[in-house]
């Protein structure tokens, strides 16, 4: 099945170097005819290639900011703000002023995704308790449900679908905070504006391209409630411009200021790595960030070496969502600022708990569809053919130099062997093999000359 991804290549900028093929954790990229080609069945939107490409030839595909001034009243526009956005600004800005600034940009309604995150935390705590109770019954722990794995990062979920299928039952099967909030926002906006829910246009301001793929091709759901995904770094300069004005957030839409329901601080915590886990009442958790680190931890879980851990929170990006490829600020500044934002959220909540929208208003859904497998790692549908191919691959690999130089366009000699077996490459794509053959031919010509 075709699986959409949200990374594209600018062929003119691509130099055909080997940087991206080497960094790709799923070996989804090959250089063919001097240009990088992405296998869309294997790309999980981790954005490693976007970060690594020295020529900026890789780009995340997102939607473009609409001309909000031309919007139609029958189709109200809603912006969903993930907590990571709050970490982006060096100017003094609080959550309310950022939400107000989004209104000023032209969005009719603005909701914090932290609302959905807080609701998800509540439900996840229940799931943890249910799993503990089930463990008590099992006792021997042979078929342990632990560790539970967060499904908040779509890149991680797609990695598990492809390469760690045995871990699918460990995933928290709740839809993502983005979806929980979108469903709530659609109903609320429909009620407030009097238009049918399907006319409400929902825009998510995203720190990463995987959220766009997740909205086009939902995980565990039939349809996404998110209509468009905008890049955080596209919205950032417009917001900054508004926030730098001294009267930002106060005068402009003071009427609407109270209209924004604020989330419980636990929802705001999700922006950084370990934030989600810290909202659950367990000490036995592990937060792991960076896609290559995530892979090594998933291996550990598969080898049953982490049974003493109750909850694993893997994030594709270093630092968590604040390290996303579509953010505007370096992740270290973002992390420091996020700390203040969370501190402020807790302080405000302590002073006035009634100001927060109760999480009960939002309803995290259990995945309505079982998570599908991604079979792109499979050599062939028929196991006998696959066995033959595997055998052939091993034979070819033993004749390759083992340098993993990447000059053939595949990231490793093993990957080239696979490409040859699948009919996508030739043995002479290997420059070492080619050199050997040329030398042999040259020697034969010399003999003939004598």
């Amino acid at each position, binding site marked *: 099945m075709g699986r959409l991804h949200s990374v594209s290549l600018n062929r003119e900028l691509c130099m055909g170097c080997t940087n991206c093929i080497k960094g790709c954790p799923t070996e989804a990229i090959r250089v063919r005819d001097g240009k990088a080609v992405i296998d869309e069945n294997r790309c999980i939107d981790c954005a490693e290639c976007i970060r690594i490409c020295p020529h900026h030839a890789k780009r995340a595909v997102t939607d473009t900011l609409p001309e909000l001034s031309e919007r139609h009243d029958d189709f109200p526009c809603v912006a969903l703000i993930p907590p990571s956005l709050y970490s982006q600004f060096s100017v003094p800005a609080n959550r309310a002023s950022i939400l107000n600034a989004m209104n000023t940009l032209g969005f009719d309604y603005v909701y914090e995704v932290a609302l959905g995150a807080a609701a998800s935390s509540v439900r996840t705590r229940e799931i943890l308790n249910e799993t503990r109770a089930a463990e008590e019954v099992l006792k021997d722990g*042979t078929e342990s449900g632990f560790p539970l794995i967060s499904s908040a990062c779509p890149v991680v979920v797609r990695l598990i679908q492809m*390469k760690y*299928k*045995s871990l*699918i039952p460990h995933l928290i099967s709740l839809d993502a905070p983005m979806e929980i909030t979108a469903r709530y926002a659609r109903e609320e906006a429909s009620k407030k504006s009097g238009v049918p829910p399907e006319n409400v246009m929902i825009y998510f301001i995203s720190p990463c391209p995987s959220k766009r793929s997740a909205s086009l091709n939902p995980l565990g759901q039939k349809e996404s409630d998110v209509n468009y995904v905008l890049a955080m770094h596209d919205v950032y300069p417009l917001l900054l411009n508004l926030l730098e004005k001294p009267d930002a957030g106060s005068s402009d839409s003071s009427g609407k200021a109270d209209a924004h329901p604020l989330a419980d601080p636990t929802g705001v915590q999700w922006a950084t790595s370990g934030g989600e886990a810290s909202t659950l009442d367990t000490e036995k958790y592990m937060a792991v960030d960076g896609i290559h680190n995530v892979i090594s931890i998933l291996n550990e879980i*598969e*080898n*049953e070496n982490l049974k003493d851990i109750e909850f694993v929170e893997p994030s594709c990006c270093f630092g968590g969502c604040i390290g996303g490829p579509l953010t505007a600020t370096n992740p270290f500044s973002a992390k420091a600022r996020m700390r203040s934002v969370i501190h402020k959220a807790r302080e405000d909540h302590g002073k006035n708990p009634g100001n927060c929208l109760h999480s009960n208003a939002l309803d995290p859904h259990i995945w309505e569809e079982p998570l599908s497998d991604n*079979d792109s*790692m*499979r*050599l*062939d*549908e028929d*196991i*006998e053919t*696959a*066995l033959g191919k*595997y055998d052939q691959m091993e034979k070819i690999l033993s004749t390759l130099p083992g340098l993993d130089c990447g000059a053939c366009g595949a990231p490793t000699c093993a990957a080239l062997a696979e490409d040859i077996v699948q009919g996508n490459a030739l043995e002479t794509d290997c420059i070492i093999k080619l050199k050997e053959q040329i030398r042999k031919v040259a020697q034969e010509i010399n003999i003939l000359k004598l």
Partner: protein
Amino acid sequence: MKKALTRLGVRPLSIKRASIAMYEAEINAVIHGHGGVAVVHIFPDSVMIEIIDHGPGIPDVEQAMTEGFSTAPDSARAMGFGAGMGLPNIKKQVDLLEIDTKMGEGTKVTMHIRF
């Protein structure tokens, strides 16, 4: 082996069973048999794993199959092994288990897992 079975499209549960059985048998060969070799045969419907060591052999196989029975040295126990669960755990995972052992010559553990 795990990687190979994944590439062949074997279902995750079978891969898990094979991995656990192989791991336990390898640990046994290291602790008791001074190391050894592993031979894996993959068929379209099953996998056969042989772990062969040239250690002291198992005096009483039936006793060794008992949960909790262990002759592991303290050095192995210090690392968290030697709970006497190795062979019983293997038995749980595999469809067929053969133990061929000769005192002073070594042990060959053969495990079959159907996919």
